[in-house]
């Protein structure tokens, strides 16, 4: 489980964090903090779908569901076969 969280966390750090000083955890707000905006959410969604070979329905890809690594992983788990 933590492997999955770490994978998502590391991807977020690599792709969306501009400052290496920022420390984020599984609970750090991503959308409400502005680290990931609504337009960038699309690229995060594509990453999840590619990496886990899943399809997340557009209505489930909400700012709330994407707001931290824990909630993202919970969402992904619903669609894992």
């Amino acid at each position, binding site marked *: 489980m933590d492997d999955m969280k770490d994978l998502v966390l590391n991807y977020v750090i690599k*792709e969306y964090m*501009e*400052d*290496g*000083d*920022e420390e984020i955890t599984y609970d750090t*707000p991503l*959308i*409400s*903090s*502005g680290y*990931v*905006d*609504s*337009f*960038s959410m*699309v*690229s995060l969604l*594509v*990453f999840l*779908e*590619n990496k886990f070979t899943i399809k997340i329905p557009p209505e489930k890809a909400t*700012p*709330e569901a994407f*707001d931290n690594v824990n909630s993202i992983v919970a969402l992904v788990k619903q669609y894992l076969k």
Partner: protein
Amino acid sequence: MSNIGSYEERLKQFSWSVAENELEYAAGNIINIGWYCSDRICLRGDGAKVALYHEDFCGNQKRYTFNDIRLAGNTIGSFLRGLGIRNEDRVCLFMDRIPELYLSFLGVLKIGAVVQPLFSAFGEESLFVRLENAGTRAIITQRKHVAKVRKIIDRLPALEHIIIVDYNPAKPLEKKEVAFSLEEAVPVETMELFPTRAESPSVLHYTSGTTGQPKGVRHVHYSLISQYLTTKWVLDLRDDDIYWCTADPGWVTGTSYGIIGPWSMGVTQCVLDSGFSAQAWYSFIEKYRVTMWYSAPTAIRSLMKAGEEIVRNYDLSCLRHLASVGEPLNSEAVIWSQKVFGKAFHDTFWQTETGSIMITNFPGMKVKPGSMGKPFPGIEAVVLDMKSYEPLTEPGKMGLIAIKPGWPSMMRMYWNNEEKYREKFVNGWYLTGDRASIDNEGYFWFVGRDDDVINTGGHLVSPFEVESALLEHPKVGESAVVAKPDEVNMEVVKAFVTLKPGFSPDKDLELEIMNFIRKKLSPLAMPQEIEFMEKLPKTRSGKIMRRVLHAQEWGEEIGDISTLEND
């Protein structure tokens, strides 16, 4: 009774001197927006009134009185002067919606320098072209964004100072960087205001066109006259209002109506520096008892998507007046807001170039859902025939929206681009680049853009800029970028791409290209969809036929394809 009273009566006897008199300004006097937004409010006895309630995404709150923002403007202005920043130097503000963004705006103007606000989500290339074009001398930014500046600093010889407002002492400063903490700085009680006049440059906003690089739209301090009066008559702000403009000051709404309008009237405003969520927004309105809310159709459609149920969890009875800007407000959104909030959102139409609201649904006037409304008093707006550029008189006939130049906040130039500036005027009319019709009651009805510029979430994106950036990706051969319809954002960016020999399309490459554009330009410019093609539709002379792809996305007739290259 609304501030404007009778629209028809205002039309009969309108003069911009209404605003000049209220602001106690006379031709030839000093006029400085920074002073008007802070010192003047204190001098009239409202120094202790709250100017800004600020809340960040963690819920941390700050409040600033008009005296606080006066002192902050002085302190930041004095600091910049100490660095050698002079009048007419360009100072870029590259920050999230933190208090320093709003307060620096005043400080830069007070010393007569030119504010160049840029959206903090811009990637390094978007940042570079705008700083290079403006010959920017200083940039005020945050630690989280400084990495982008560091990547381009060597290509920007004019950029002498990188000012970091939240410097971390544990990390060494790099080349040209200087730390500045407003909280730790000694407040400057008095400073010598630079005596800007009506035509002194004030704000330089960048906007995108179909072709070429972004254009720097230069405004002057006299713009205050129409920004003040439209705030009063269209947004209907009053002394006891709590105002929330959801726009980011990286864009013109965030400065004209997110700083200048409310503060020049001495009105309290609040700012939420947080990403969008319906719960967070409703909670913010309830908590601060927001009375006037100026937002955007994209946000309104997102709220509609979140549903009506959630609204019932909040007490939003404080809302008195609602307005919207950035893209056409669809009739469904107007009807929905009337049903859910008991108030209709009033559409306002204007542009970076116009500096203030041009056409709008006024408070107290009958709102026709889906209509843009009527021209502001003193604004002569028409629709022109697409070929002759003569005004159309027949109701319902579509043409180009054009405005007779001469209002106070009209742009004075495109920075370093006289040719593009001249192209905006034909037969004595300013061409907005938008198409509309006018009904028999004088209401304007938006039809669409007259060019290929993509309006996504109320922000303009140049297809040319995205296509050029795509070509810098090592695997991309050719590219064409068009708008794709979107339920929430009205339009989003879609890219059609061919690959260089040896590369084949897959989902990982799609993501790689999306992230490449997001980091290079901005999240707004990132294609939300990439379609890989064997070849792009071209004319026989080799020009990519973007309109064929656009028609395909919108389900429209492709039109004349006689020049289309055959296989």
